[in-house]
């Protein structure tokens, strides 16, 4: 039910799901089958005893599509709860990235300075490379990566967004 005029929004959805085989395939299949976007996806067990996993999806779409996505997810049998963290209030969103840069001489100095100003840690060093570890909001990481780009960026590995609502309440 989207009309081209409607603005595209970016939402972070968090859900609690049964930690059972196939649950991730069910969610990913729903997105691909119905033509929704996945910008980022993270999955991890919440606790071993509860047999629950938490899945965080960052998606984009017009508001009615976002509503559809939520109710489509919600009706999957192993999905317990879907929370739209973007609607609930400004959630804490963090992503971790490992970034490899290759270079010699001055370029190394430059890379270290940038890393320092982003509070990235150096987790591997050789005579001609660094691996930086950075945590932050996705756009901070985007920015960091783009600054390193001309300095010999080799590769990036990002975890995807983990998110949690602010305040004392759980989801």
């Amino acid at each position: 039910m989207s009309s081209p005029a409607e603005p595209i929004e970016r939402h972070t959805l968090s859900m609690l799901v049964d930690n059972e085989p196939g649950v991730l395939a069910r969610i990913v299949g729903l997105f691909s089958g119905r033509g929704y976007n996945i910008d980022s996806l993270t999955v991890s067990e919440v606790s071993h005893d509860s047999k629950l996993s938490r899945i965080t999806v960052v998606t984009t779409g017009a508001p009615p599509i976002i509503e559809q996505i939520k109710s489509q997810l919600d009706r999957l049998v192993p999905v317990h709860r879907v929370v739209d963290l973007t609607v609930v209030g400004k959630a804490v969103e963090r992503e971790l990235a490992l970034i490899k840069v290759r270079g010699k001489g001055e370029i190394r100095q430059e890379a270290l300075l940038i890393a320092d100003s982003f509070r990235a840690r150096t987790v591997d060093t050789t005579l001609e490379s660094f691996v930086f570890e950075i945590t932050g909001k996705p756009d901070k990481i985007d920015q960091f990566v783009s600054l390193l780009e001309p300095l010999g960026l080799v590769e990036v590995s990002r975890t995807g967004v983990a998110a949690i609502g602010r305040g004392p309440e759980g989801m």
Partner: protein
Amino acid sequence: MMREMTGAEMVMQALIDQGVEHMFGYPGGAVLPIYDAMFHQNQVRHVLVRHEQGAVHMAEGYARSSGKVGVVLVTSGPGATNAVTGLTDALLDSIPVVCITGQVPTHLIGSDAFQECDTVGITRPCTKHNYLVRDINDLARVLHEAFYVAQNGRPGPVVVDIPKDVQFARGIYVGPENIQHKTYQPRLKGDPEKVKAAVELLAKAKRPVFYTGGGVINSGPEASRLLREFARLSGYPVTSTLMGLGAYPASDRQWLGMLGMHGTYEANMAMHDCDVMVCVGARFDDRITGRVDAFSPNSKKIHIDIDPSSINKNIKIDIPIIGDVKHVLEDMLTMWRAMKAEPDRRAIASWWGEIDRWRARKSLSYVKSPDLIKPQYAIERLYEAVKEKDVYITTEVGQHQMWAAQHFHFEEPNRWMTSGGLGTMGYGLPAAIGAQVAHPDSLVIDIAGEASIQMCLQELSTALQFNLPVKIFVLNNEYMGMVRQWQDLLHGGRYSHSYSESLPDFVKLAEAYGGVGIRCHRPGDLDGAIQEMLNVDRPVLFDCLVDKMENVLPMIPSGKPHNEMIMPDHPEALDDAISEEGKMLV
């Protein structure tokens, strides 16, 4: 009840404990232990099909005509893949089916073993839910849970895939007592605030319409009763989708006929011009809405649905009520009475005046012929011959399906079974067999086309084997008529591969199976031939040769709004009815 037994025995025990009386299946290596366990009991009767697609459609026909869950048993690999069409059909039409599939033993899973396929992977998008049971200790619970999930909330098909070693393994069986899904607990009662707002809006309406669908049928006979009561109390007009036919009696004055692409003029005009629309268990599907941005432009819309994802999916809703139709209608009626709601009699009378003028257009009329059987005429005569009987109707897919929906009239729910969402040719015969299994003494007729019937015709053999005297009434126009109609509409009448070439002699074919074949091609002989069919207590294939070139009218061409219908008095409008944009649609 807790008892040690094998996985295969658990399957049978779980079926018995779930009250299953009939199942539809086909054996193979990966389900032999279950067939062996079946051999040792006589509570559940197994109907041996001829193709697994037929098994699922039979289960659907059984479920839709009886309100029970349809049960299917098939083997791994090709057994499971053959069932996929039926499962998808059941998903789109929200029919409760539990389908048990055999799987290769757990240690062979992933090795491309003989007759291995990734059944849960393949069926994930075409089931409401599915399970692969790797541990015998989960089996009984999963089976009971499957029945719970299939029936509760918006019904649908559930697959339980059981590896062969799990069928042999021994474990403790637990009964169905208290088994429901941990968290899957759909909401039945509507939000009282929304119910109140809806009733207030409805009571003030000047041009209201009830737009009802398959959800009324799925909610059970009580929902149909409440709908009738609400209609009587309010005096408002009622229309329905293809899926909802029978929930409201077609003989009633407030009945507008079916709506949508081939619905009546009065139903579609009422939808277009109404000021308050109450959608009861329907989903604003594209066959109903036509062009969405021109759909019922001036109405406030109330939508009752058990599935929140149906709300606002295609059409923006003003008052959504999430809940089971029966519960919500009950609460609405209570509220209506408590409020002493008084409809605006004058406005409603003038609304009916307008509707009656639309009715007077007689949008279902057609030109009779003295020497050709018009397909509409054939349905009319069939209806006249059986309307006093205890009759269940199924259909295949095509023009005949639409003519059946238009010209056969239903007074009660659960009497009409057609593949609405998926539009599966081949549905009707197995669905009729399933309905006949559920109602052995009733008359069950599959209204078919000569092309569709050939898709699952082998099930005639099943009907013979189990003494199920289904009647197949073929409107034989020697064309995939619906395809030909669209080729008229979109492709300049170039009938590319829509002629039913090399048709079998249906009479001889019926006889070859051991059934009865009847052929009729003259209007004057039709009543007698139908009577002959009804007098036979065995399966009959009735080859009714009809006008080859008739088209289904009225019609809302795709991409057009409701008030731009092509009417039978101007059929030539079909030729260039669809815009370039509309051609992209189906």
